[in-house]
């Protein structure tokens, strides 16, 4: 039996890295167990993944695309088009035809390797949906409770934004607060919509709502704000392997699946800071398989894990890690399956509430698109720099989902290829082809709408002895659907909001939802209309926090109700999903949890 740590953390992504940072700053010893390989942390690998991005022709539709397959610790291959209980996805198993279509990456650094970087805070009403709108349930904490942790998260992730743009729906900042860096410049696309939608509004369920285009906060390096902090501003964090690169976004237009210069935050940056710390040990290629309970104290005695040498082979040795505190930080799905796989009861551990794995939420996502009336020159810059954020809250939430509309800077993505084919079909070639293609590309606009989902007992991840990976570990099994609350939001977005936007901005609408839906999309019908919807990769809610142990898995500090030394941390603690991309909130929750752990360890 090896060393005893103050904390053993399962998962080397943003949640694990931030928890380790805070605990080690408090002088505590930490072991991080990462299921995946060291991968992107090594500069030569990172370069190799960039080459894969090129040789695979962009692999844009596939966030995990450039990263190598690991059969010892598999990741989902979304978006493939899986069938019910089908084997089309090498990792996910689906129990229902409405699939959960979001992925994550099991590698050191986790899914922050290919996240978009959007770092919006939740709005205060997201924390009290039940009391304000009689939907979902309330959180045990409020926006005010989480506000200090949001600030720390904005520091750790390096968020670029200007405070004056971000004050809406009761979101507040302490007097004099500024973000670490100024907001990124808005794109030509943003300016186009901003001008077209000025003073425009839309009617939703008896209320009139403005269509305000607002720059979004992002964890992507911009110009440091000299007013940040008490002394002299903020030092942007460079690429992990090269201190001269990534200090500012240079417009690689590839936040997903890979930023070539790491101008965007990834957990590699936090882990890199900890590399020389004697307090933190990181072990990669260690898949946690079970938590072992000490029946006498009801504490977790050990984390059992499989250590492997070769990602292509299931061969491994079984080892144990021991800590005063055990912290699961492996994302909402892996945290839930690990709890379900532990203990001797079929309910698993930390599950007296029967809520582990339930209330799984994501942002159902759909696109609308068309040609702008003037050239806006997309296919340049970060994938999105602004959104219509004025529909994220309102009385209509009593009836349907709120949503945000993200303006795409990447045109219709892979569409230039389709356009080229159809021009050639029409026998257009030479100068005419060049001109037509350039002109069309310069006017391609696309909006991505993402909707909130309500927590539901029926949307869940579970495990089954019938479905195990090559190493013999449980694969996640999903039951998941979109309810009418979300779909009514989608209906309002397409038929009211997009309609209004395209009228005001004089868009030549090309939105079309073909049947069957393209790979990665789910075809959904609602009130006689059909939409093709996909996932957002915003995996939330499987181990929610709460006021009492009957309805929740953890308390407000993310400690499990059932086991006095077990914390389960991440977006899985979110009680509702709201309309903010969840990484910043998850990071803030991790900071809050780590501070509670420190108090407990003192």
């Amino acid at each position, binding site marked *: 039996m090896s060393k005893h740590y103050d904390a053993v953390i399962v998962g080397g992504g943003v949640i694990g890295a931030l928890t380790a940072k805070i605990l080690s700053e408090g002088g505590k010893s930490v072991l991080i167990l990462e299921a995946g390989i060291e991968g992107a942390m090594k500069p030569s690998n990172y370069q190799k993944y960039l080459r894969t991005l090129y040789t695979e022709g962009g692999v844009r539709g596939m966030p995990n695309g450039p990263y190598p397959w690991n059969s010892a610790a598999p990741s989902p291959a979304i978006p493939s088009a899986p069938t019910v209980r089908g084997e089309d996805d090498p990792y996910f198993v689906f129990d229902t035809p409405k699939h959960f279509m979001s992925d994550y990456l099991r590698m050191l650094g986790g899914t922050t390797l290919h996240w978009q970087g959007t770092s919006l805070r939740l709005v205060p009403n997201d924390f009290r949906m039940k009391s304000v709108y009689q939907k979902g349930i309330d959180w045990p904490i409020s926006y005010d409770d989480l506000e200090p942790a949001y600030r720390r998260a904005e520091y750790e992730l390096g968020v670029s934004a200007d405070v004056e743009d971000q004050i809406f729906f009761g979101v507040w900042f302490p007097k004099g607060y500024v973000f670490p860096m100024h907001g990124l410049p808005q794109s030509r696309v943003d300016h186009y919509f901003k001008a077209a939608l000025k003073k425009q509004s839309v009617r939703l369920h008896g209320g009139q709502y403005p269509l305000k285009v607002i720059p979004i906060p992002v964890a992507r390096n911009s110009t440091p704000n000299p007013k940040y902090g008490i002394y002299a501003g903020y030092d942007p964090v460079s690429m992990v392997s090269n201190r001269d690169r990534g200090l500012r976004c240079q417009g690689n237009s590839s936040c997903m699946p890979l930023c070539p210069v790491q101008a965007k935050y990834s957990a590699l940056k936090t882990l890199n800071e900890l590399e020389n710390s004697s307090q933190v040990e990181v072990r990669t290629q260690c898949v946690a398989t079970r938590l072992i309970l000490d029946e006498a104290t009801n504490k977790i005695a050990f984390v059992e894990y499989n250590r492997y040498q070769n990602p292509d082979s299931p061969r491994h040795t079984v080892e144990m890690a021991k800590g005063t505190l055990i912290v699961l930080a492996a994302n909402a799905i892996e945290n839930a399956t690990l709890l379900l796989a532990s203990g001797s009861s079929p309910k698993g551990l930390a599950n007296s509430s029967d809520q582990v794995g339930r209330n799984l939420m994501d942002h159902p996502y759909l696109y609308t698109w068309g040609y702008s009336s003037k050239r806006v*020159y997309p296919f*340049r810059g970060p994938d999105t720099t602004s959104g219509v954020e004025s529909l994220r809250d309102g009385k209509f939430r009593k009836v349907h989902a709120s949503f945000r509309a993200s303006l795409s800077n990447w045109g219709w993505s892979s569409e*230039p290829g389709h356009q080229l084919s159809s021009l050639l079909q029409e026998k257009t070639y030479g100068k005419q082809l060049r001109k037509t293609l*350039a002109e069309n590309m310069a006017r391609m606009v696309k909006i991505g709408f993402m909707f909130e989902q309500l927590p539901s007992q029926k949307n869940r991840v579970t495990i089954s002895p019938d479905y195990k990976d090559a190493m013999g570990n449980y694969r996640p099994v999903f039951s998941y659907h979109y309810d009418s609350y979300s779909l009514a939001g989608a209906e309002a977005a397409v038929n009211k909001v997009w309609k209004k936007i395209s009228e005001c901005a004089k868009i030549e609408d090309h939105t079309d939802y073909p049947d069957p839906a393209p790979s990665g999309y789910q075809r959904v019908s609602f009130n006689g209309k059909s939409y093709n919807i996909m996932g957002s990769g915003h995996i939330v809610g499987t181990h929610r926090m709460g006021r009492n142990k009957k309805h929740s898995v953890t308390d407000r500090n993310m400690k499990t109700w059932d086991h006095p030394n077990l914390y389960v941390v991440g977006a899985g603690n979110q009680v509702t999903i709201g309309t903010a991309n969840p990484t910043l909130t998850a990071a803030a929750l991790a900071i809050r949890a780590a501070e509670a752990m420190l108090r407990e360890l003192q």
Partner: protein
Amino acid sequence: MDKDRRTFLELSSELTGYSPIDLEGTGLVDEYRKLVEYEVGKNVTDLLYQTARSVLDKKSGEERDRTMHINIMASAILWPICQNLVVLWYRGQWSSMSSIWYKYYARVSPPSKVAPGKTFVPSTQSYTQQLCYKAAGAHPPGANPTGFGTWGLDPVFGDFAKHNRKRQ
């Protein structure tokens, strides 16, 4: 200059609307020529270059266009190759000719390393030099970035640059 190389370059130029100098600037002329010649085989290559010359040697654009329609676009052997060639330059991807093309039109068997109908990116440079982005004043995702904040300005290179420079 090698006569066939000249024909390949001029044909590429006629088809893509980019000047031979622009295409040379990508550094891909020889790689692409080799690829196409390998994929379609010697006999079809000869036919392609011979026919291409009949188009390219015409003096006026109007005549070249007419001959292009008659001699190349009407050919079930040559037009599919030319379409692929345009996609290769614009998107940096090559889709190998179909089995039907090999069997019934070209009447040759596919070369040993070719999987008919399969799409691939010949090299990392093919990806980074895609003409479609160049035309739109943009760049391929993940390569040749345009610099901090440039996305907020009109493009200063590509086909709209002249127009935009004039405006500024």
